[in-house]
């Protein structure tokens, strides 16, 4: 299977199963489009008629180049991966390597669009005790097999509302990681309200990544991200984020925004982030129940698609000007990205990745927390709900009929189980809007990667 499209002044041909990316001229583009549908003679006749200023010999030469690519396995490569679909998960069954620790099911902001219902996940407010968190880290080590790199996210709600426990857990993990031959990678996701010098210093030493929530334009941010008095948080958090990032050096961070029906023109928000001096950016479509006012509508989609294309152009422009920036969803490493096992296995939720509630219950991921039927077990007794875990274990890209004909399937791995569940009622369903957005992002990402590769060669 191939996917061909025109973007950013390039004719791009992606060979889905080999992963090869070809930049082609108009003649090659048209030949490739016909290649598997018509005979050589018919194709040559059609292309000669269309490109009458080009000699027939040259068109035949182009046809032969395409044929060589096919014979070399770099074009129209067949999908031979289906038998391997369950292999990685079976091989690693029972291994847990990442936990999302919900250290605080409470929040000091009251954002209407919060998928976690203001941090409470439709339950009671709660914070995680050190003992529970410590047990979660022990559970992770006990179940991590030979995995060296273990990921732990401090999540909420707002994790800084339980900061002392976060620090103690980091200290505890550091005290045992060498003994167990592990390497903990911590992430902190915060709304910024409680950031102070001490949080900055500790996080910049210990957190591999920090995710800082900012929606961009002040009026957009303050429409949703408000305190319990309804007051916007932009003025309070932006100076803190600036300070945090300034002191972070080369360590990873993301300024992470959410866009909703209120701002499908989210590029304007990204520009605000750039003007503030931030360069590592992530902007996510809102996740909400169907019919809610913040939900992106069908009419928003063309605007969003246009924003993604304009964003890609802006990235190229700024790179040329020596002012590059990163957009999370356009990060793609064509030369060293994930292997095929990872690409067909799905995201790892419910198997290698789980979320832990403040009282120690396990869920397949943070987006399932609060949905009792998806409770997997707890950190004390382990996974006891094998039926649910098996559902996630068997979740891979070939389980979804809709994915079989999709060119992007080896880039999304079948998509987000939670998004699928919330939009279709089934974790093996397909969240169609999400797919459309994802495909557009991948087209842009591949174009940018190809453009950058060309730049480097020159």
């Amino acid at each position: 299977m191939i996917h061909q499209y025109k973007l950013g002044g390039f004719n791009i041909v992606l060979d889905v199963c080999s992963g090869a990316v070809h930049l082609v001229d108009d003649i090659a583009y048209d030949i490739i489009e016909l290649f598997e549908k018509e005979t050589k003679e018919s194709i040559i006749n059609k292309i000669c008629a269309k490109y009458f200023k080009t000699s027939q010999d040259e068109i035949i030469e182009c046809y032969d180049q395409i044929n060589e690519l096919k014979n070399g396995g770099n074009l129209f490569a067949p999908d031979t991966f289906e038998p391997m679909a369950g292999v990685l998960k079976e091989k690693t069954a029972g291994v847990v390597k990442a936990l999302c620790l919900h250290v605080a099911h409470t929040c000091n902001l009251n954002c209407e669009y919060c998928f976690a219902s203001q941090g409470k996940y439709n339950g009671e407010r709660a914070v995680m005790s050190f003992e529970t968190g410590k047990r979660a880290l022990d559970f992770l080590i006990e179940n991590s097999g030979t995995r060296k790199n273990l990921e732990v996210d401090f999540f909420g709600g707002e994790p800084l509302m339980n900061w002392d426990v976060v620090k103690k857990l980091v200290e505890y993990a550091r005290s045992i990681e060498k003994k167990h031959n592990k390497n903990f990678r911590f992430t902190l996701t915060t709304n910024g309200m409680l950031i102070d010098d001490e949080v900055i210093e500790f996080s910049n030493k210990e957190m591999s990544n920090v995710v800082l929530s900012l929606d961009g334009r002040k009026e957009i941010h303050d429409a949703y991200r408000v305190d319990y008095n309804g007051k916007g948080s932009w003025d309070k958090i932006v100076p803190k984020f600036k300070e945090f990032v300034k002191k972070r050096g080369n360590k990873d961070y993301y300024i992470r925004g959410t866009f909703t029906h209120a701002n499908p023109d989210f590029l304007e928000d990204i520009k605000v982030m750039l003007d503030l001096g931030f360069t590592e950016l992530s902007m996510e479509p809102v996740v909400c129940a169907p019919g809610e006012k913040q939900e992106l509508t069908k009419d928003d989609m063309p605007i969003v698609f246009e924003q993604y294309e304009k964003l890609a152009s802006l990235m190229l422009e700024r790179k040329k000007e020596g002012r590059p920036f990163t957009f999370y969803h356009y990060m793609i490493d064509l030369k060293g990205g994930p292997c095929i096992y990872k690409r067909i296995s799905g995201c790892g939720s419910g198997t290698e990745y789980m979320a832990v509630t403040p009282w120690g219950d396990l869920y397949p991921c943070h987006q399932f927390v609060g949905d009792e039927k998806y409770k997997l077990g707890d950190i004390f007794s382990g996974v006891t709900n094998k039926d649910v875990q098996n559902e996630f274990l068997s979740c891979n890209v070939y389980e979804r009929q809709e994915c079989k004909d999709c060119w992007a399937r080896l880039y999304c791995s079948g998509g987000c189980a939670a998004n699928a569940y919330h939009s279709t009622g089934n974790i093996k369903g397909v969240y169609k809007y999400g797919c459309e957005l994802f495909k557009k992002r991948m087209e842009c990402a591949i174009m940018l990667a190809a453009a950058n590769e060309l730049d480097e060669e020159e």
Partner: protein
Amino acid sequence: MTHIKTIKTRNLCSSVKKGGCGECQTSCQSACKTSCGIANQKCENKAQSK
């Protein structure tokens, strides 16, 4: 005349041989938290052949 410029990419078919170590980051962990994309992940397999 060259009509086609092939960008250097990891051959996915070849990654069958040495892939599958499971050391790479869990999808969506650490950044977006609301969508799944594996394309932006780094391969952490020290033994893999590119």
